């Protein structure tokens, strides 16, 4: 029987020879990730044990990852107290993949999981964060779940009630023009299929553009697959995946790869020509409100944000630096930079990236989710507009329902920081 990669992963994890699309399975979980919302997971976990007479014990402390990133360092006593409770719980239960607020090991959960080699091709990964789709970039079936579902996973080690999803195959061919980036591919796709176009489905990425893309770009693409409603995005593991895991994550053990069968059945096939693609902008207030940059160029921007689990990686910072070197951030525009992890922060520092960015007028903040979800830093004033490399532009997203968020690549964000208005980086002249 011909199967997609996700069918194969779910069959293996559920102990079945094969699974059909639509079957309900109970796969074993390889990595169960939470961030500060582990506070709610803990609460629900203890509820499950209530009245059982059993001592609450997680199924396997080595398969659980907890990473503080949403509000670091804590912005309020409520968050600080939640973080304290989580720390105590983690110590009691012996959870080993814990990343606290420390310069040497902190970062955004969706950077830490790949960077530390916690995710491997063929794994089933769940996270109490909708952008858990990210880890499909390494060939895993990885999806977001709620806190109560995570409490159930902590208890049982399996995900109850997983329908085997149909798969949309997206084939991307052609070479991207200079300063057209992986972010532009995924924004273009979301604009094309809409915010619910892949609801309850998986998007599997193929084609020479994806094959030639580094893992960081694949991460951007899988990260935002959820903005088309996808359960997960996935790039079949290949030589690049192995290279990333060996060189970036220091993985030394065997890395088996899984791929779809050649004639597996797909829900539909979408082809994208990367060579003709222009930089794309997701305009307020939905991620599928996507326009080529030319249509919104000139829009005045009050705040530029470069960072997040979508585009806070070293190559994003390098692109921004290359563009901004020798220029200044426009007067009246703020530029905030949030590297995705402590490791990236240190690498950027060593490469002199911060010197260039700060000389230009950018503010470099500590690794973390930053202003992306409007809970910590970098809130917007009434009537202000932000251009951000993050993944959502919903009303109120950056902490103010009377502000607007535009989404773009790091290249567009950097060029726009110089001019103070939305600017096409491929055109130069800034």
């Amino acid at each position, binding site marked *: 029987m011909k199967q997609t990669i996700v069918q194969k992963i779910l069959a293996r994890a559920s102990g079945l020879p094969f699974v059909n699309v639509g079957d309900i399975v109970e796969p074993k979980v390889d990595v169960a990730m939470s961030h500060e*919302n582990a506070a709610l997971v803990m609460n629900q976990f203890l509820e499950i044990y209530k009245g059982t007479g*059993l001592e609450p014990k997680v199924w396997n402390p080595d398969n659980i990852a907890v990473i503080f990133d949403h509000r670091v360092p804590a912005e309020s006593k409520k*968050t600080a107290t939640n973080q304290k409770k989580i720390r105590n719980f983690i110590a009691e239960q012996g959870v080993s993949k814990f990343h606290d607020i420390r310069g040497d090991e902190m970062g955004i959960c969706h950077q830490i999981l790949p960077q530390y080699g916690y995710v491997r091709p063929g794994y089933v990964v769940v996270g109490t964060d909708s952008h858990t789709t990210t880890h499909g970039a390494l060939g895993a079936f990885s999806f*977001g779940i709620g806190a109560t579902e995570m*409490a159930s996973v902590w208890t049982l080690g399996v995900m109850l*009630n997983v329908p085997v999803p149909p798969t949309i195959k997206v084939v991307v061919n052609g070479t991207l023009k200079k300063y057209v980036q992986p972010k532009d591919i995924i924004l273009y796709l979301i604009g094309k299929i809409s915010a619910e176009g892949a609801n309850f489905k998986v998007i599997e990425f193929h084609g020479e553009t994806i094959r030639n893309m580094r893992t960081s770009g694949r991460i951007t693409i899988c990260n935002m697959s959820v903005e088309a409603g996808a359960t997960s995005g996935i790039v079949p593991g290949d030589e690049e995946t192995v290279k990333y895991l060996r060189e970036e994550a220091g993985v030394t053990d065997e890395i088996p790869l899984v791929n779809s069968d050649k004639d597996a059945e797909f829900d539909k096939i979408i082809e994208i020509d990367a060579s003709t693609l222009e930089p794309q902008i997701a305009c307020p207030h939905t991620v599928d409100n996507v326009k080529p940059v030319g249509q919104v160029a000139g829009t005045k921007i009050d705040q530029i944000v470069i960072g997040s689990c979508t585009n806070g990686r070293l190559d994003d910072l390098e692109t921004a630096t290359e563009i901004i070197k020798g220029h200044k951030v426009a007067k009246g525009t703020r530029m905030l930079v949030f590297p995705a992890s402590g490791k990236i922060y240190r690498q950027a520092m060593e490469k002199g990236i911060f010197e260039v960015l700060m000389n230009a007028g950018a503010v470099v903040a500590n690794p973390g989710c930053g202003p992306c979800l409007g809970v910590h830093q970098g809130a917007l004033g009434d009537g202000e507009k932000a251009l951000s490399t993050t993944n959502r532009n919903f*009303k*109120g997203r950056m902490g103010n329902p009377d502000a607007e968020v535009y989404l773009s690549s790091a290249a567009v964000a950097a060029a726009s920081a110089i001019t103070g208005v939305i600017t096409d980086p491929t055109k130069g002249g800034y």
Partner: protein
Amino acid sequence: MSKVIYKFGDDISTDIIYPGRFMATVLPSETPEFAFADEKELNKLLNSKTVPANSILIGGKNFGCGSSREQACSTLKGHELIIIARNFARIFLQNSINLGLKTIICPDIDADVNDELELTDEKVINKTKGKEFAIIPHTKTQQEIIEAGGLIAYSRKKLMERVLEN
């Protein structure tokens, strides 16, 4: 019989249902006051304690899109609301089933504020408009979770079955 108290368009995100800045509040019992905090009139109405249990919100397509935050369900559950939408985003739908927030998938729903609706297992009957709309039932496992009283009770049952097996 239940009354529609509010009608939304498509793509109502969890940031609208429960804005991110309240996410440090996690306990289900503490979340209801922040429901639709930025939709001031609706928030005021819900917190006025004048809305009867089982009142209905009508959504369009992709209701609950965005973040996995479970507060978006517990906040609505706290007000004992029923959500009828053309379809739901995946994580929100599963969270609602897990927490016991009643969600109904009704692709052709036509209902306005103050319409009186009767809900059966197969359809939504709009008494005011004199129209009926078929619903898409939840999956068998989802129904089992609902019947068990939510995912906490369902997982507890599974846990105890395992303990007895060993």
